[in-house]
């Protein structure tokens, strides 16, 4: 079977509008492009001249699925810029909030966007006929994630409750206890998911070496935030130096700040966190880690789906730990900014990877802003794995159904195309 061009558009079951184009000439892959067809929104310019309060309302709108990660990254950046030091308990409430988003986003991706591929369905609803219990439990788990987001964010999507220096309203004791009870309930299904995944066959046509970056938590445990970039080569960098570590460049086929570390593509996301920080996992999350992680993970991003399943377990267990901690903690007050000018870089691990927000504030208004999203970081890596897949499948002459195989590679990263909308494909004239 001879093909000269493979075009997959639209790329389904991802957030935002994208496509994949592979060009083949004389049985050799000439070019691979992950096309980003989302229109420009220019967020970096929308916040100029705005107050930090306005910035915080606007940035979640970059992306609905990880809206709280955007808010959280901006909070961390703006609070550094304005020298706001929130009490430890406020940080704990933020971690609770973030677990909601991890559970919402991971369960959405794992069960609804990725798993249908493994079982041969167009979507998760079609899956429900045969895998009714899994779909129902997955919906319940996602609903739980959304419940935490609503409670802490103020609304399921784009809530205004997290504010500079604290929260507008904190959850009641009853609500916290409810979360703990529900988290324990969902833990069974999260662990059952680990067993389901352990039984799946993971394709090997895409395997190649890559590198992994995530934020290093400021304590000895597993977590989703930090001020140090940790790479899989063991090197650590202060977050403020992100522009020196994550080198952005433009490429001829795509407008775009593409990212490289050590001149090579890299992966961020659940798989990067699990591979870089997995030795910190405890309890059932450790059990899940021991069941699933193997050497192939370092060469195969399909395992990102599995890493999300491990993080679901971690987040559910950590919700329980956090609730116990908050029940005896004092109610924190909102901290007011002691100054009106400064520069700050904030980093959080969004569900799909490291997210960096950077601000310069002068006299209470934003004069400079920079947002680097996970999808912008791993787009080169997706292309490299798609190229490798194409080469392997071409060499074996397994071209039937190649579109789905390439789509699975892209989907495994859980790309968020709205987030990366400043990666519009362009033609140089």
């Amino acid at each position, binding site marked *: 079977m001879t093909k000269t061009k493979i075009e997959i558009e*639209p790329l*389904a*079951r*991802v*957030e*935002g509008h994208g496509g994949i184009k592979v060009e083949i000439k004389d049985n050799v892959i000439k070019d691979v492009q992950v096309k980003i*067809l989302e*229109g*420009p*929104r*220019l*967020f*970096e*310019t*929308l916040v100029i001249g705005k107050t930090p309060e*306005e910035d915080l*309302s*606007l940035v*979640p*709108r*970059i*992306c*609905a*699925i990880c*809206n709280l990660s955007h808010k959280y990254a901006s909070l961390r950046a703006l609070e550094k810029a304005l020298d706001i030091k929130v009490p430890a308990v406020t940080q704990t409430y933020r971690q609770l909030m973030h677990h909601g988003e991890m559970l919402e986003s991971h369960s*959405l991706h794992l069960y*609804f966007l990725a798993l249908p591929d493994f079982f041969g369905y*167009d*979507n998760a*609803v*079609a899956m*429900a006929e045969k895998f009714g219990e899994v*779909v129902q439990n997955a*919906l*319940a788990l*996602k*609903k739980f994630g*959304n419940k935490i987001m609503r409670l802490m964010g*103020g*609304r*399921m*999507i*784009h*809530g*205004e*409750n997290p*504010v500079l220096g604290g929260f*507008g*309203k904190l959850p009641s004791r009853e609500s916290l206890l409810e979360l703990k009870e529900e988290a324990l309930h969902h833990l069974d299904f999260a662990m059952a998911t680990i067993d389901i995944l352990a039984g799946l066959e993971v394709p090997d046509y895409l395997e190649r070496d890559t590198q992994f970056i995530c934020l290093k938590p400021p304590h000895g445990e597993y977590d989703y935030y930090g001020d140090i970039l940790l790479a899989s080569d063991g090197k650590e960098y202060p977050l403020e130096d992100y522009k020196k570590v994550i080198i952005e460049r*433009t490429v001829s086929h795509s*407008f775009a700040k593409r990212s490289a570390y050590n001149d090579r593509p890299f992966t961020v996301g659940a798989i990067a966190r699990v591979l870089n920080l997995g030795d910190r996992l405890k309890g059932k999350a450790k059990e899940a880690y021991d069941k699933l992680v193997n050497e192939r993970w370092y060469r195969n991003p399909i395992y990102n789906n599995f890493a999300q399943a491990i993080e679901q377990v971690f987040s559910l267990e950590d919700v329980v730990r956090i609730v116990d901690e908050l029940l005896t903690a004092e109610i924190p007050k909102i901290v007011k900014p002691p100054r009106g000018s400064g520069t700050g870089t904030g980093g959080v691990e969004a569900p799909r990877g490291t997210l960096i927000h950077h601000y310069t504030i002068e006299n209470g208004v934003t004069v400079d802003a920079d947002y680097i999203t996970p999808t912008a970081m791993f787009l080169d890596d997706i292309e490299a794995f798609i190229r490798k897949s194409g080469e392997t499948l071409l060499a074996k002459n397994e071209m039937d159904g190649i579109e789905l195989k390439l789509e699975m590679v892209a989907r495994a990263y859980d790309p968020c195309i*709205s987030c990366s*909308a*400043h990666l*519009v*494909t*362009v*033609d*140089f*004239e």
Partner: protein
Amino acid sequence: MSSDSSDKSKPRVGIYGLTGCAGDQLLLIHCEDEILDIFNAFDIRSFVMASSNPIEDDMDVALVEGSVSTEEQKEHLLEIRKRSKILVAIGNCATVGGVQAMYAQDGTFKDRMKKVYGDMKFITAPMEGQPLDAFVTVDYYLPGCPISAKQALPLLSRLLHGASPEPFPHPVCHECKLQENKCLLLDKKFCLGPLTQGGCGAVCPSHGLPCVGCWGPNPDANFNEHVKLLESFGMTKDEVIRRIRNFGGHKILQYIKDL
């Protein structure tokens, strides 16, 4: 794409996203208690965010999220309109243009494009975000950033049964009163509730936080008086207008032009 897509008795539906955060489509996906019923009641032929293998032909209902921000999207929207009996704009970007349209018509778009992208030639020409009705007739509007399930599900239900969805012509204040919140304006806090379309359930004031106006302008509002009131709290008129414009898109221009 759905297994029973040949069922002729079910309304054929397409759910599309142009430029935005995908939050309105996500809100539908997040209706965990209703999503299976929605997929069963309708013949959902295209919903790329949730399913592969869309069928793109004539439809009874198209739900379209996002602003029109490229020439390609404009063509796509015109094409969707042609094959849809009913077109519903869902979310702030589709109804007013979204946050990407906060500087509508101030002439800075080209400069801001250049600042972010440099001198690039695009495969499809970019444009400042516009609401759907700048290009096509919109039959129903579902405002929100994102839309709310309390409004989206009744709209779907009405369309399913061949009835007409009704607008909700009330400001955020109306719902804030129903929540028995103390008015933030009494404490001289900047709140855009009176100027903003309701339907969110006054969620921010219920958290003690001011309304930022994310559902877009309430057509009945007294913009003139409210801007004066906010100025009296110690903010300049420019600052007030700037904040009003954050979520007002193109539609806000008609309300603030004489202020």
